[in-house]
């Protein structure tokens, strides 16, 4: 048996059903073995599309996503996606070919130091020097990727190792003495946390992406205690977006209620989040009244990294919540809720209606038409924030976006990964005209595998988020953000791929457009020409705090209610 077959057999033993990838010289022996394998392969048109699709596959399914690429340029095209998966703690295994061992270090054709390049953007990586190590390396890679704080692991396999005769065994034991994630929270700390919550007058519960798998326990805990719940961008869907205890998203473009709740809270229970700067704003002014911050995280390094933590609990969100649930009591929060309710009703998420078609109303229309029942993916920018604000997902693993790295272009490949993972679900990619053009070659992947993905391009003809910052902080000097003079006709572009194209330009055609997208049999690319001077609000400027929140565009400030 050759190394390539060993690799595929090892992947099968890990339960891998699908690989996203792109072949090339140094990975050809493995693609040859794949020809006879049961594992499904999704051929993408660019390796970046493959790694993003594998990321979304993992996030949508809870399983490890697998991507494969060749040496040098193929592997280097994974870089952005690996960094993205690391930032958003997603289990991905990347397999790359490399030049034969004898050529490593000689600047051979398509050679790059891939383990060197990916060292800081993977949870761990391997360069396989001996074919007999393959079963152990694959076992370890999947274990490391999926356990503890999940993350990407890369396995680099020289071409001659893929061709070498295997004389080892598949019966391998994990031997990772330096890797022992703590899953169970410390009982004393859990007791202290419950005690602090019981004594609190204005407590809040903040959850992030680390609680996506703990949604059941989270719901039970929140309902038992009556705590107000705030979900970060990565935490959207971990708690139902239509629940009365939900205050929305915090941070730069979060709700007034969520940000004010954090500002006034005396006790904060934070679960599976890392206090990103988009959430905290200026750290020294973050949650100034919180005398107790309880931080539950599986990664000890996150605790105390950004904010001072008074009760640290290292452990898995689900296990800790299960333990906390045992001692949880209904809290007396009527006074606090009266305040929260006031902020919530006074400052709902909204937009100023204009004669033009607007991104917010397009997203809201899709949310209403689907009852929020879809997997949503996004690119990065204004449309991403609008989707987070106006498409409140109600189920976990259903809002797939690039949180930490902010990678433009993930929308379409994320939708591909999500659709492959959960084919029965409606998958909508809300994309921007800027983001979409970064990876739109993957339209071919939709066609090739008949993936019924609905791409909604909110075309404002600009790099809208950059434009918004230029508008607010750079004296309207719109440097290099104009796209409309050279954007393609997106509907016709889709048609060139054999995909149904829809174009909506007028406000009155909105519902007809939504209907056309949702009723279409198969993939659609729908271009909605939206108002270009829109801003995402509320907004806390970078480095600001909750008190600096801009609720509407300054030029329209007089319209803000007291």
């Amino acid at each position, binding site marked *: 048996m050759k190394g390539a077959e060993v690799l595929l057999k090892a992947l099968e033993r890990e339960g891998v059903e699908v690989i996203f990838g792109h072949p090339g010289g140094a990975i050809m022996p493995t693609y040859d073995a794949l020809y006879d394998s049961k594992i499904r392969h999704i051929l993408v048109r660019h390796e970046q599309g493959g790694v993003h699709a594998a990321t979304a596959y993992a996030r949508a399914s809870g399983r490890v996503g697998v991507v494969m690429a060749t040496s040098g340029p193929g592997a280097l095209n994974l870089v952005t996606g690996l960094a993205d998966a690391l930032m958003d703690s997603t289990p991905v295994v990347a397999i790359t070919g490399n030049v034969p061992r004898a050529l490593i270090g000689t600047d051979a054709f398509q050679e790059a130091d891939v383990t060197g390049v990916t060292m800081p953007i993977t949870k761990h990586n391997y*360069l396989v020097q001996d074919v007999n190590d393959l079963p152990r390396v694959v076992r370890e890679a999947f274990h*490391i990727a999926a356990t503890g704080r999940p993350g990407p692991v890369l396995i680099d396999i020289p071409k001659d190792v893929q061709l070498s005769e295997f004389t080892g065994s598949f019966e391998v034991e994990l031997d*990772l003495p*330096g890797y022992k*994630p703590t899953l169970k929270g410390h009982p004393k700390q859990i007791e202290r946390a419950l005690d602090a919550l019981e004594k609190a007058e204005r407590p809040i519960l903040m959850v992030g992406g680390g609680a996506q798998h703990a949604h059941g326990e989270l719901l039970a805990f929140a309902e038992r205690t009556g705590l107000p719940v705030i979900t970060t961008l990565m935490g959207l869907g971990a708690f139902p977006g239509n629940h009365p205890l939900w205050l929305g998203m915090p941070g730069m473009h979060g709700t007034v209620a969520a940000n004010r709740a954090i500002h006034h809270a005396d006790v904060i229970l934070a679960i599976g989040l890392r206090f990103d700067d988009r959430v905290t704003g200026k750290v020294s002014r973050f949650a100034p009244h919180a005398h107790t911050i309880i931080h539950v995280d599986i990664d000890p390094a996150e605790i105390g990294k950004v904010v001072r933590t008074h009760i640290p609990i290292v452990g898995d969100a689900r296990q800790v919540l299960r333990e906390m649930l045992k001692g949880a009591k209904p809290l007396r929060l009527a006074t606090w809720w009266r305040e929260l309710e006031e902020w919530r009703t006074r400052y709902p998420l909204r937009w100023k209606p204009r004669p033009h078609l607007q991104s917010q109303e397009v997203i809201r229309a899709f949310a209403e038409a689907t009852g929020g029942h879809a997997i949503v993916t996004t690119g990065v920018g204004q449309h991403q924030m609008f989707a987070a604000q106006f498409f409140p997902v109600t189920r976990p693993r259903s809002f797939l976006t690039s949180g930490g790295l902010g990678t433009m272009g993930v929308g379409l490949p994320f939708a591909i990964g999500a659709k492959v993972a959960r084919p029965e679900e409606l998958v909508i990619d809300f994309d921007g005209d800027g983001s979409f053009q970064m990876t739109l070659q993957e339209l071919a992947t939709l066609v090739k595998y008949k993936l019924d993905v609905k791409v909604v391009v909110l075309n404002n003809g600009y790099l809208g988020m950059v434009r918004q910052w230029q508008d607010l902080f750079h004296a309207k000097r719109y440097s290099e953000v104009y796209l409309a003079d050279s954007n393609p006709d997106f509907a016709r572009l889709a048609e060139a791929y054999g995909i149904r194209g829809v174009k909506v330009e007028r406000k009155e055609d909105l519902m007809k457009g939504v209907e056309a997208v949702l009723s279409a049999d198969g993939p659609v690319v729908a271009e909605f020409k939206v108002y270009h001077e829109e801003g995402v609000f509320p907004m806390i400027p970078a480095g600001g705090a909750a008190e600096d929140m801009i609720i509407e565009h300054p030029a329209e400030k007089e319209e803000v209610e007291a």
Partner: protein
Amino acid sequence: MRHVISVLVQDHPRVLNRITSLFARRGFNLESLAVGTTHVPGLSRISLVVSGDDHTLEQVEKQLNRLIEVLKVTDHSEPHVERELCLVKVHVAGVEERLAIKDIQEAFRARVVDVAQKSLILELTGDSGKVGSFIEALRPFGILEVMRTGAVAMSRGERTLKVREKREAV
């Protein structure tokens, strides 16, 4: 504040690279690094001298622990022995200087390991402070080159750098 940290690692290719890459990536300030094999096959031991406040040091320790091949990290705040080896090649202008250098050598308990007509190589072992003073004492004679290994450290008493115990199965 200056801290001496010992790290026990699996002796895998690039493990040193992972550590220095981590320091560069997180902006930690690394003053010196010394590495060597241990009495246990497959395990290496690294001594790091790091400066930073308590928050930084806590992060250094936690981020090092995240590395899969790192088995144990200890910040030597407890009583410990710290040593550094240093070679100094110093210019010898004449007999008078040779005698003066010999006085310094004896005062510091250094050894002469190479003698040439116009130079000497002196070897000194001691903590980093002593090594520093030694170099300063020789400076007036004209130092030709210096090589310091960086500090290595070990806890006093029975305490050792052991592999952390299995806490629970994953």
